[in-house]
Structure formats: structure tokens, C-alpha cells
């Protein structure tokens, strides 16, 4: 069978009985029909696109309300992760990219490249802002490891500058935790870590108390968050009474809360607040 393929869409015609003109006319007709169908498909595609818009908008709003998809894919990130990385992030491969960069962080840590680590932390947390682990570890590295390294930096003879560098790393750690909290306001872990950092590195007992108290409000938070909040409030001027009430309440919950530190702080508060003997915990 003699077959001829159309130049347009692979059409096959039995052209044995058709003249060249007839074939050409058929081709033109088929071509027009094909174009009409494709045009119809494009119009329908746009129509369906318009029909789906309300659902798409509602989904995007609900996702934002549920703190999903918070990554800002902007020029700043593009510069930090390069073109290929940005392309990967754009195509929905943010998490594997963040994991690979985290391995790079580990290498930088082994080589004590603190500045490079700070840059990588920024990128990783931008790519995966909902991962508590990345924020927590990044803040810990900056506030606890990099700060100590800065203080012990033998290349820097000036103690004032070493202290300055140490404080900068404390602030970097704090900034990471605060940004982490803004991205994950529904998790207790970063509030807890912020409390620990403010207590241990900044000696900001009022701030630490507020952070521990906020952490303790989450149903899945460990019980020590409330105790920590009480201990820090005891050191926060003006909140001693509140601290006493909280710690006493914990004490009255039973043996599980009656830890030596809690009892010692309670006794100190009783003395400080001049609590009558009948109301003191030892009377219970």
C-alpha cells in the first residue's frame, strides 16, 4: 500500500486515487481542523484555569494560615545558593538541598570556619524554615561553640575585641532563635532554647522567664519548662511574688516536682517575701 505522510502531523493518506490537488485540499482542511481543536484546547485550558482560581487562592490562604510554604524565594537566596541551587529550590527540592548544605555545615564546623557556618545557617534555615532542628542547632553552634572559640582566639590579642566577637556570636544565636520562633510559633522547643540562651549567656532573667513561661503553655512541653520559668522569675525584679506562687503550686503538685532546687528557691522566696510561717511550704 502506497502511503504518504503529511508534513503537519504525520497524516497518512491513501493517495492512489486522489489527485495532488485533492490531497492538498484535504491537508488544508485537516490542518484547519487540527488548529481549531488546539485553539479550543487552549481556550478551555484558560477557562479551567479561571475556574480553578478560587480553589487555588483558598488553598494558598489556608496554607499560609497553617504556616506552610514560608520560604521566601527571592534574589537574596538566589545569590547565596547559586543558580543551580535556586533552580532546585524553585522546583520543590528545598529539603534535599538543605540536607546537603547541612553536611557542608558539618565540614565547616570541623574546620572551625565560623563565618562560613553563619552564612550556611542563614541559607539552610531560609530553605527549611519549618525545621526546628536546623534553627536550634544553628543557634547552639553560634552562641555556644563559635562564641567560646572567639573568646579563646589566640590570634586576637585584645581582650575587648575578643569579648566583642563573643557577644556578636551570642547575638547571632539569639537572632536565629527569634527568627525560628517567628517561623514556628506553634512549637515549644525554640522558646525553651531561647530561655536557656537568655539565662546562660545574657543573664537576662526576665527575658528567660518569659520564654520558659511561653514554652510551658504548649501541651507537649516538658514539665521542667514551668520550673525553669519559676526559677528565672525569682531573679527578675518585680516578679518574685509571681515566681513564689508558681513554684508553690508546683510543689503542691507532689513529689515529682519537689526537687532540691525548687525547694531551695521556694525557701529563699519565702524569706524574701516574708511569708508567714503557717503558709510556708514546710507547713504542708
Amino acid at each position, binding site marked *: 500500500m502506497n502511503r504518504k505522510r503529511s508534513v503537519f502531523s504525520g497524516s497518512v493518506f491513501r493517495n492512489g486515487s486522489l489527485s495532488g490537488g485533492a490531497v492538498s485540499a484535504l491537508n488544508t482542511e485537516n490542518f484547519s481542523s487540527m488548529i*481549531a481543536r488546539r485553539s479550543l484546547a487552549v481556550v*478551555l485550558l484558560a477557562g479551567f484555569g479561571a475556574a*480553578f482560581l478560587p480553589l487555588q487562592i483558598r488553598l494558598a490562604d489556608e496554607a499560609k494560615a497553617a504556616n506552610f510554604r514560608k520560604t521566601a524565594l527571592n534574589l537574596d537566596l538566589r545569590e547565596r545558593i547559586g543558580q543551580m541551587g535556586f533552580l532546585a529550590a524553585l522546583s*520543590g*527540592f528545598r529539603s534535599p538541598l538543605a540536607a546537603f548544605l547541612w553536611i557542608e555545615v558539618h565540614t565547616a564546623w570541623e574546620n572551625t570556619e565560623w563565618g562560613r557556618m553563619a552564612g550556611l545557617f542563614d541559607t539552610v534555615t531560609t530553605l527549611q524554615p519549618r525545621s526546628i532542628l536546623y534553627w536550634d542547632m544553628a543557634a547552639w553552634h553560634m552562641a555556644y561553640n563559635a562564641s567560646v572559640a572567639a573568646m579563646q582566639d589566640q590570634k586576637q590579642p585584645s581582650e575587648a575585641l575578643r569579648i566583642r566577637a563573643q557577644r556578636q556570636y551570642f547575638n547571632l544565636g539569639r537572632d536565629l532563635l527569634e527568627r525560628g520562633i517567628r517561623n514556628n510559633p506553634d512549637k515549644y522547643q525554640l522558646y525553651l532554647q531561647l530561655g536557656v540562651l537568655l539565662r546562660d549567656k545574657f543573664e537576662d532573667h526576665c527575658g528567660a522567664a518569659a520564654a520558659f513561661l511561653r514554652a510551658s503553655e504548649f501541651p507537649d512541653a516538658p514539665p521542667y519548662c514551668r520550673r525553669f520559668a519559676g526559677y528565672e522569675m525569682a531573679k527578675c525584679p518585680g516578679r518574685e511574688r509571681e515566681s513564689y506562687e508558681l513554684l508553690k503550686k508546683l510543689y503542691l503538685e507532689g513529689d515529682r516536682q519537689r526537687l532540691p532546687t525548687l525547694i531551695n528557691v521556694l525557701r529563699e522566696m519565702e524569706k524574701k517575701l516574708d511569708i508567714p510561717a503557717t503558709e510556708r511550704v514546710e507547713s504542708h
Partner: protein
Amino acid sequence: MKSLQGTWAIGWNTFTELVRMKVFYFLLIFALLIIGNSAFVAKFSFQEQFQMLKDISLGAMSVFSSLLAILATANFLPKDIEDRTIYTILAKPVPRFSYLLGKLVGILLLLALSILLMTGLFLAVLWLRERGVLAETRAQLAGGSAEDLALALKEVTGSTFNANLFPGIAIIFVKSALLASLTLFLSTFASSGLFAILMAIAIYFIGHLQATAREFWLAGVDVHWWSRLLAAGVALLFPDLQAFNYVDDVIAGVAVPTGLFLQTLSLGGLYVAVYFFLAAIVFAGREL
């Protein structure tokens, strides 16, 4: 009923054909990737290990299923036309619609099986790592209090499995089904498989920007009319693929609200149906 049987026969045949093409070799790469990853990250803390294992496994699952959907579907029509098998099938009382639907069913079966196998592999590696870490933790805290041990073990188990992973995996399947249906539509007018693949990959990237274009268009920003027209074109003609990107959040342990999950599945189902419908329209008029 007969038409449905025909569709199923074409679907099953497509599935077995794809399996014979040894497309499952990619699973070997997936296995190497996640097992290699577990060995490589052994020096990290267990939380980091689990996080990275989930990051890489679910990310790879998303990449492989998307690629599989595009690459396998793009060649159906060009290959059937080249092999002339399409003439044999359509010469029988099989409507073109059933032929296309059968092809889609075949690729969906393949995608479902691939994702199930990858999920099984991923969960097995995660479980084995969890067992290892639990044993290490028990050994380290052997002399400690039962309460400390229980807290530590809870910390380990809390970092590994969570039920939220499954909606994330279901959405990966829906996204790959959407891409398969879209590629099938493209291949109904593409002159070659390569053209359909390139088009699908381009749409894949544009689709991830569709939400940005839509917001730009609807926000009424005072810009050139042609910028808004372009944004409107992207918003109307391309799928919103960002709507299916929950994996990154799911890995971080965030639960997908049920309403959001169901609506995302519905949007995916609608896209699959629309692209298939459009493919059927174009294919019905295509000269073979």
C-alpha cells in the same frame, strides 16, 4: 462495560510494557541514595541523621516520581505511532478516548507501585536506623533512672516516624499523576517524545512560579499592562505546582490539616481530569 474492559486491558498492557522496560532501575539509585546517606551521616546526632534521611528520601521520591511521570508518558504516543501498534489497536472497536484513558491508567499504576516501593524502602531504612539508635540509647542509659530512659527513648521515636509523612507521600503521588496527565496532553500534539519531555519540564518549572504570577496579577500592582497580561497568562494556563509542595513542611514534622489535604487532593484530581479531557479533544482530531 466492554469499553471499560478495553481500557483496563490497555492500561494493564501499558503497565507491563513499562515494567519490562526496566524503569524500576531507578529504585536501585533510590536505595543507594538513602542507604548511602545513612552510612554517610553516621557522625551526626540522631536528630540530624533522621532529618537528613527524611529530607533526602522524600526529596528523591518527589524527583523520581515526577521524572518517571514525564519520561514514561511522553513516549507513549510517538512510540506507538512509530511502531504502528496504534493502528492495530484503533482498528479494533476501541474508541480513542479509551485508548488514552488506558495509557493514563497504566502510568498511574506504575507511579503508584513505584511510590509504594520507595515508601517501603524509606520506612525500612528509617526503622532500622531507629532500632540502632534506640539500642545505643538503652546501652548508654543502662544505669540511669527509668524515667530518664523513657524520656530519651521518646525523644528518639519522636524524631523518626510520624503519621504526617503519609499525607506528604500521597501528595507526591497526586503531583506525579498531574504531571503524567499533563505530559499525555502535550504528547497528543507533540511531533516527538523529546518535544513533549522538554515542554513538560518547562511547564514543571513555570508551574512552580504560577502562584507568584497569580498573586502578582490579582494584587493589581501598578505595572505595564503587558506584565499583568503575561502574569495572567501564566496564572490561567499553567498548573499551580506549589500547591503540591508540602513535603518540605511535612519532613519538619508539621501536620497537614485534613481540610487542606483533601482540597489539595481535589485540586490534583481536577487537574488530572482536565488535562485528560483536553488530551482526548486534541487526540480525537489528530490525523494518524
